[in-house]
C-alpha cells in the first residue's frame, strides 16, 4: 500500500521519537541544569564563601602561595573568583592533571574543600553521557540527529500549525497531551532548532572528519593553528633564573582590553622564558572565545600576542558554539536558556507520554508479549522522566549526606546518582503505572522542597550565601511545580467518573 508523505512522516516521528526520546529527555534535562553548572558547583562546595576581592588581590595571594609551595612547578594556573564562581583555585602543573588547591581569596590561606561531582557532572553527562569521551559523543550526536529529524517530521505532520498556535485544552485526555506537546514544540521551535543544530555542529569535525583528514591529514592542531593566530611557542635555547614580573599592571591592561578575566596561566614561572596568559571570561560576545587570550612575557611584562582577530569562517563557527554554550548576555540570558531547556525537556516528555496514552486502549487486545512491551515503554517513561528528576535532586542530597572524609567522594556521589536512577526503573516496573508516576514525582518534589532545610542543617548556617539561596529558591519553585503535577495526576480519574455520570444522565434524559 502506498503511503502519503504525512503518513510516513508520522511513522518516523512516532518511532524515532520514542526510541530516542528517552535519551533526548536525559540530554535536554541535564543540559538545562548545565546552564547553571558553576552555580551548582558553588552550592556543592559549602566550604567556599562568597567574597568580593579585586582580581589583583586574588592573584597576589595566589602567586604568593604558589611561590611558597610550588616554586619548581612547570606551570601555574590560577582560576580567579568571578560573579558566578567565588572560588579561587590554584593548580601547579598541567591545568587538568596538576595538583589543585582552593585558597581563601581574602587571606590566601588554603581551604579544605569536599571532593564533589559538582554541576560540572551535568555538563559532562549532557555531551557524553558520562561515558568514555568518543563513544558518548557519538551516541549524543546520533540522538541530536534524531531530534532534528523529529522536529522536521513533526512540522510536516502538524496539520494546524498556525491555527492552533496558542491552543491548549486541559482535562481532555489524549487531546490535552497532544495540545501540550504541540504548544511547547511550536512556540519554542526557534529554540529547539537552534539548540539541536548548534549542538550537532560542536562536534561536527568528529562526526564528519573527511575534510580534516584530506586537508590536514587528520591533524586537528594544524587546522586550529592555521585558522587562529595562536602565538608560537617560544623555546629559548638557554634559560636561567629570572624573577617574575609584577602582575598587577598586566591584569589592568588585560582587563581594559578584554573585560573580566577568568584566570591567569603562568608557564615556566621563575625562569627567563616565562609566559603569562590572561584568560578572559567567556561571554563578552556571542562567539565562544575559548583560547583567545592575551600573552605576556613573564620577565619583562611585554605584550607578546593580543586576543586574535577571528577569520569570518571561524567567527561563524564560534558564534554557533557560543549560541549553544549560552555564556553571553549575563543572568537574564541564562534564565531564558534554562527555562527554554526545561520546556524542551517537557516537550519530549509529553511526546513520550502521548505515545502510551494513544495506545492504551489497544493494550488489552495485544498478545502477552505485546502487553509486556507496552509495559516496558510505560516503565521507561516513568524512569526517564520522573526517575531522572529524582536522581538529579538526589545528587544534591548526596553531596551533603555523604561523609566529607570519604575517599573518592565524587565517585560515590555519581554511583549514588546512577543507583537512584536504576532503582527508579525497577520501581516503575514493579508498581502500577499511575502509582509509579505519583510516587516518583512525589519523592522528587519532597527532595526539592526539603533542600533548603538540608542545607541549613548540614552547613550550620542559615542561608547566608546569596548564590546558594538563589539555587535553593529555584529548586523549591521546581518542587512546587512537581507538587502541582502530582496533584494533576489524580485529576483524570475524577474527570472520567464525572464524564461517565454525565453520559449516564444524558442517556436517562
Amino acid at each position, binding site marked *: 500500500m502506498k503511503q502519503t508523505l504525512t503518513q510516513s512522516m508520522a511513522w518516523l516521528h512516532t518511532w524515532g521519537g520514542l526510541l530516542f526520546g528517552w535519551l533526548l529527555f536525559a540530554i535536554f534535562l541535564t543540559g538545562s541544569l548545565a546552564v547553571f553548572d558553576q552555580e551548582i558547583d558553588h552550592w556543592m562546595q559549602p566550604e567556599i564563601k562568597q567574597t568580593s576581592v579585586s582580581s589583583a588581590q586574588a592573584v597576589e595571594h595566589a602567586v604568593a602561595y604558589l611561590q611558597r609551595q610550588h616554586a619548581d612547578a612547570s606551570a601555574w594556573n590560577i582560576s580567579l573568583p568571578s560573579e558566578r564562581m567565588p572560588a579561587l583555585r590554584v593548580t601547579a602543573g598541567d591545568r587538568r592533571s596538576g595538583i589543585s588547591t582552593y585558597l581563601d581569596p581574602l587571606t590566601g590561606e588554603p581551604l579544605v574543600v569536599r571532593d564533589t561531582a559538582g554541576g560540572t557532572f551535568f555538563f559532562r553527562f549532557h555531551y557524553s553521557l558520562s561515558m568514555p569521551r568518543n563513544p558518548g559523543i557519538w551516541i549524543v550526536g546520533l540522538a541530536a540527529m534524531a531530534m532534528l529529524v523529529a522536529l522536521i517530521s513533526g512540522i510536516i505532520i502538524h496539520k494546524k500549525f498556525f491555527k492552533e*498556535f*496558542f491552543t*491548549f485544552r486541559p482535562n481532555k485526555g489524549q487531546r490535552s497531551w497532544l495540545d501540550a506537546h504541540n*504548544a*511547547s514544540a511550536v512556540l519554542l521551535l526557534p529554540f529547539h532548532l537552534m539548540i539541536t543544530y548548534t549542538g550537532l555542529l560542536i562536534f561536527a569535525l568528529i562526526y564528519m572528519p573527511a575534510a580534516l583528514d584530506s586537508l590536514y591529514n587528520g591533524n586537528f592542531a594544524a587546522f586550529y593553528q592555521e585558522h587562529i593566530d595562536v602565538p608560537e611557542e617560544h623555546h629559548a635555547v638557554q634559560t636561567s633564573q629570572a624573577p617574575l614580573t609584577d602582575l598587577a599592571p598586566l591584569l589592568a591592561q588585560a582587563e581594559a582590553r578584554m573585560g573580566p578575566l577568568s584566570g591567569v596561566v603562568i608557564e615556566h614561572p621563575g625562569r627567563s622564558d616565562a609566559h603569562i596568559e590572561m584568560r578572559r571570561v567567556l561571554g563578552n560576545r556571542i562567539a565562544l572565545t575559548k583560547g583567545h587570550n592575551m600573552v605576556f612575557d613573564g620577565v619583562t611584562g611585554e605584550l607578546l600576542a593580543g586576543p586574535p582577530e577571528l577569520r569570518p569562517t571561524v567567527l561563524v563557527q564560534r558564534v554557533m558554539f557560543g549560541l549553544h554554550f549560552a555564556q553571553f*548576555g549575563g543572568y537574564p*540570558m541564562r534564565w*531564558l536558556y534554562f527555562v527554554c531547556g526545561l520546556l524542551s525537556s517537557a516537550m519530549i516528555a509529553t511526546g513520550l507520554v502521548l505515545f502510551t496514552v494513544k495506545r492504551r486502549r489497544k493494550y488489552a487486545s495485544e498478545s502477552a508479549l505485546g502487553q509486556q512491551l507496552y509495559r516496558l515503554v510505560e516503565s521507561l517513561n516513568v524512569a526517564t522522566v520522573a526517575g531522572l528528576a529524582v536522581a538529579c535532586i538526589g545528587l544534591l542530597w548526596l553531596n551533603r549526606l555523604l561523609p566529607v572524609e570519604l575517599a573518592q567522594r565524587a565517585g560515590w556521589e555519581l554511583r549514588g546518582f546512577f543507583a537512584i536512577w536504576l532503582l527508579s526503573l525497577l520501581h516503575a516496573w514493579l508498581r502500577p503505572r499511575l502509582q509509579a508516576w505519583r510516587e516518583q514525582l512525589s519523592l522528587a518534589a519532597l527532595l526539592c522542597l526539603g533542600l533548603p532545610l538540608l542545607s541549613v542543617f548540614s552547613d550550620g548556617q542559615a542561608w547566608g550565601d546569596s548564590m546558594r539561596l538563589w539555587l535553593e529558591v529555584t529548586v523549591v519553585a521546581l518542587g512546587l511545580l512537581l507538587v502541582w503535577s502530582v496533584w494533576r495526576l489524580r485529576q483524570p480519574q475524577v474527570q472520567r467518573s464525572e464524564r461517565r455520570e454525565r453520559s449516564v444522565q444524558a442517556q436517562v434524559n
Partner: protein
Amino acid sequence: MMTAFLGSLLLAYSSMLALCQGLERHYKQVWGRAPTRLQRRVLRGSGWLLLAASLWGCAQAWGWAMGPVGWFGMLSLSGFALALLLPYAPRLAVYAPVLGLPCWLLLYALAG
C-alpha cells in the same frame, strides 16, 4: 540592563497577547463573543507594533547582536505562558500586562 530586560519581556508578552486576541477563537474564549472587524485589525496591528518594540527593548538590554537571540526566547516563553494561562485564567491572561506595567514603571523609577 534589568529594567530593559523586564520591559522587553512585558512588551513581548503584550505583543503575543494582542496577536492572540486578534484571532476569533481566542477572543471568544475570553469575552464570549466574536470581535468586530475593527477590533481584530487594531489588535493585530498593535500586536505587530509591540513585537517590534520588544525587539528594540532587547537590543537596549543586550545590543543588536545578542538582543535578537534573547528576543526569540522571550517571545517563545511568553507565548507558551499565554497558551497555558488562557484556559485556566483567561481574564488574568488578558490583564497581566495591565498589572505588569505599573510594576515596571515603579522599577524604572527606582532604578533611575
